């Protein structure tokens, strides 16, 4: 099955990367690299959770909220999609302290990436909700359901499956964007790579290993999302 082969692939890549690292005389750097990978994974998970929450809230506010909320949601979506992730990260990192808001770099990282990807996610949610056939809304009205009940119990569960693949892509985008946090002093995988590069000058090996580690994490995300899709589809009794 494709799922299993992907998992195996990820594990092979990861161990191969580590093997290359250890045989090429990088053994001493392995703990550092793994620490960096751990930070990268932490930020990815935190950012993904925030992104999903922001996307749901913003999409629902944009579609069904009263006008002040709707405009707020539109402003959020447009601003965070229209400016770049690095600008947002720097803005939170350099500008917020001017307003007396001092946050941990890790918090800034998760907030910036989560907000950024959440804005893209809002459009994913909106598209998936809009793709649920109109008849489902009409049946809900005919059963006298209030709108938020219909949304929660009838529409969103159906939109959920359609959202999984695009969310998989967004999560990978988020993983890739975590590399930016190395620029605000967080010692993630990219930061460690830079550090090692500056001390050893073995650029090709170092960056190849680190790229492979990112690839492995992104394959893990793909595998996880495929699995989620299978489980969700089973709940819908589709394809049976």
């Amino acid at each position, binding site marked *: 099955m494709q799922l299993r082969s992907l998992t195996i692939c990820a594990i092979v890549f990861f161990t191969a990367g580590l093997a290359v690292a250890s045989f090429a005389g990088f053994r001493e750097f392995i703990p550092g690299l793994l620490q960096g990978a751990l930070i990268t994974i932490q930020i990815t998970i935190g950012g993904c959770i925030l992104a999903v929450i922001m996307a749901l809230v913003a999409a629902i506010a944009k579609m069904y909220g009263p006008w002040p909320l709707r405009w707020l949601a539109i402003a959020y979506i447009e601003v965070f999609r229209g400016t*770049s992730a690095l*600008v947002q990260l720097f*803005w939170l990192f350099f500008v917020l302290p001017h307003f007396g808001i001092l946050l941990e770099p890790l918090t800034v990282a998760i907030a910036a990436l989560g907000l950024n990807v959440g804005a893209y996610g809002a459009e994913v949610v909106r598209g998936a909700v809009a793709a649920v056939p109109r008849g489902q809304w009409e049946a809900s009205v005919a059963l006298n359901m209030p709108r938020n009940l219909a949304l929660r119990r009838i529409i969103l569960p159906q939109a959920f499956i359609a959202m999984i693949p695009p969310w998989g892509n967004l999560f990978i985008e988020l993983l*890739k964007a975590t*590399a930016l946090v190395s620029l605000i002093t967080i010692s993630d995988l990219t930061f460690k790579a830079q550090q090692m590069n500056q001390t050893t000058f073995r650029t090709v090996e170092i960056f190849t290993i680190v790229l492979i580690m*990112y690839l492995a994490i*992104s394959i893990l995300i793909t595998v996880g999302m495929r699995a989620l899709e299978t489980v969700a589809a089973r709940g819908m009794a589709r394809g049976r």
Partner: protein
Amino acid sequence: MFWDWNYVWEIMPQLLRASVVTIEATLLGFLLAAVLGLVLAILRMSKTSWISVPTAAVVEFIRSTPVLIQIFFIYFVFPEFGIVLPAMVAGVIALGLHYGAYCSEVYRAGLENVPRGQWEASTALNLSPYITFRDIIIPQAIPPIVPALGNYLVALFKETPLLSAIAVLELMQTAKILGSQSFRYIEPITLVGAFFLVMSLVAAALIRQVETWLNRSLRNPGGDR
């Protein structure tokens, strides 16, 4: 006082100069991406699997890993082979490579979306493959391709601040330098953000225009205008 207009006017000329670098990097990077993408797409659609499979692997690899590391990689690796690239060139190559991988998928989807029946109908009409491609396939493939490429142009544009990591003097790097000189980051970084916001909103509107225009003139020539 959070916002200082005097300071804004003072730094404006430098930021404007830097924005030229940003736009240059965007256009050059995208040019590279568009061409490279086409090459990758053709290789990936090749019928010989020892060409198509490795190409697919490379495309997936590039797409699944951070562009920042790709920038570092290119910037630091070439000197090892004795070729010293200016930061700007290395950055443009990295961006072009990364988005070339994305663009290749756009071309591929566009070409594969033209129904098989169109090829079959053309064969039935005894059109040569060249004519079929030029008059039947390309006109149908272009309307979805162009707006998708446009979206990646905007995405690449928004990724140019990463070049600040290798000290290219584009907008973000300039803003950071200005900020560190005056200890005022609010104005430069906010202005950079505003610049990106305005440019991407304008670009998005343009892409929508082009999209409607293409749909009318290529899919439905002689239709209502």
